[in-house]
């Protein structure tokens, strides 16, 4: 989202958080019984649901790959989930780009060679948003893929970093992104590989700050990673298919 031209000083965060603090997070696995795998991830007022279907037959046929299964993500904001006016249902340029980036962020941990000509569909729906939606979506989707029982090298964990006048911060919210004009740097991180699978940046950031910021991002991603793992454990050590909520 576009930043306002007037740059004001930002001495402390408007919600009282420390510069490195995440908003309240919560994760739950198995929220959509009809799906093969599903999860919910909440960070502050941003909530993402993810449902996985597949591997299943891919249509139209010309899209099939005889060498491997493919991953297809669809990111969608519910029409009432935006700030301001109603979001028109259906895909937009923004949602199409985000959907594509999500697939790229998740693909490195999957091995779909066992499923030629098939597709794994990941549907991400957001009932409410306050920035960081693609990151919450990736975090939820990784849990849902694990819940679906797919062979995975690791989970993917994602968050949005911020940069403003030399100041680095974690998990910026909608006010910081749109009203203050803090640079938004969404990342996705794969802990066991120690690699980033999503990296975007809007704003101006010197190289030294970028490296510092990514180092902090890794550290904060590990906090989210723990919650993802706990939520998965809670489902599979529990009795039913509805996992317990895990909070941090």
């Amino acid at each position, binding site marked *: 989202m576009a930043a306002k031209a007037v740059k004001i000083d930002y001495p402390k965060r408007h919600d009282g958080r420390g510069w490195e603090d995440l908003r309240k997070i919560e994760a739950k696995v198995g929220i959509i019984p009809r799906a093969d795998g599903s999860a919910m991830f909440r960070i502050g007022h941003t909530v993402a649901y993810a449902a996985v279907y597949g591997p299943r037959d891919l249509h139209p046929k010309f899209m099939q790959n005889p060498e491997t299964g493919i991953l297809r993500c669809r990111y969608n904001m519910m029409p009432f*989930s935006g700030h301001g006016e109603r979001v028109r249902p*259906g895909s937009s340029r923004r949602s199409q780009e985000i959907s594509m980036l999500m697939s790229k962020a998740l693909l490195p941990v999957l091995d779909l060679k066992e499923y030629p000509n098939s597709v794994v569909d990941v549907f991400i729906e957001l009932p*409410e948003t306050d920035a960081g939606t693609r990151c919450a979506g990736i975090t939820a989707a990784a849990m849902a893929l694990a819940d679906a029982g797919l062979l995975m090298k690791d989970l993917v964990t994602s968050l949005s970093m911020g940069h403003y006048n030399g100041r680095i911060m974690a998990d910026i919210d909608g006010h910081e992104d749109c009203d203050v004009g803090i640079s938004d740097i969404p990342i996705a991180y794969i802990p066991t590989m120690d690699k980033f699978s999503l990296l975007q940046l809007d704003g101006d950031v010197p190289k030294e700050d970028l490296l510092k910021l990514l180092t902090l991002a890794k550290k904060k991603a590990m906090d989210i990673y723990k919650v993802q793992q706990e939520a998965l454990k809670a489902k599979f050590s529990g009795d039913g298919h509805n996992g317990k909520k895990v909070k941090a």
Partner: protein
Amino acid sequence: MSNEHIVKYITKGMRYDGRALDEYRPVSIELNVSHCAEGSARVKIGETEVIAGVKLSLEKPYPDTPAQGNLMINAELTPMSSPQFETGPPGEQAIELSRVIDRGIRESKAIDLTKLCVKEGEKVWSVMVDIVTVNDEGNLFDAGALAAIAALKSAVFPHVTEEGSVDYNKKTDKHVPMNQSPIAITVIKVGDRLLLDPSPAEEAALDARLTIALNDASMLCAMQKGGDMPLTLEEIGAMVDLATKQSKELRKKLG
């Protein structure tokens, strides 16, 4: 499970999940599930889950109703909620769902649209209700209609600035003016039996379906017949009786 088995079972008065034919699954309503919407509700009927959200905006009125607010109801059958649903523009199933829910709310005059007029012929409030399916375990008609009315009842107007534009970050405590709370109940016919609150497998096996919306006084305010087979007068009477009885239970939940 083939349709044949389902029908055989139902004809003996039994269902695969052990419920009686007229037995509804547990219903829950949770309000304010999206801080971005002016009103929102999550409804669960058994494992079926839908979310409805209300957005309000200032628009031009329709030329034939210059002194009334606009009402729009839309339903999204998300591919997230069932392997049967696909991406893309709403299909006939989603369109029928939104139109049936729309009629229940519109024809019962649930919302006092005259109170939504800001300046006749120029500016009125537009009420947009979106119903999104989260998990489809059947009976989306009843769940969607209940979520829509619960979200509307909880909806408050956003703040309007002196220049007359909407400030969505500030909500007022003024509620959308409501006159009625229509409740929709769907009764399906399988073989010679009538059932409430069908599962997806039962929906696939149905001969006929009747969705009946009832207002606060249990007056019928909208109906829609679905399914391939016709209904007798006696069957319609029995379906209305079942729906009327069940609507009172859901009305208690709505509070």
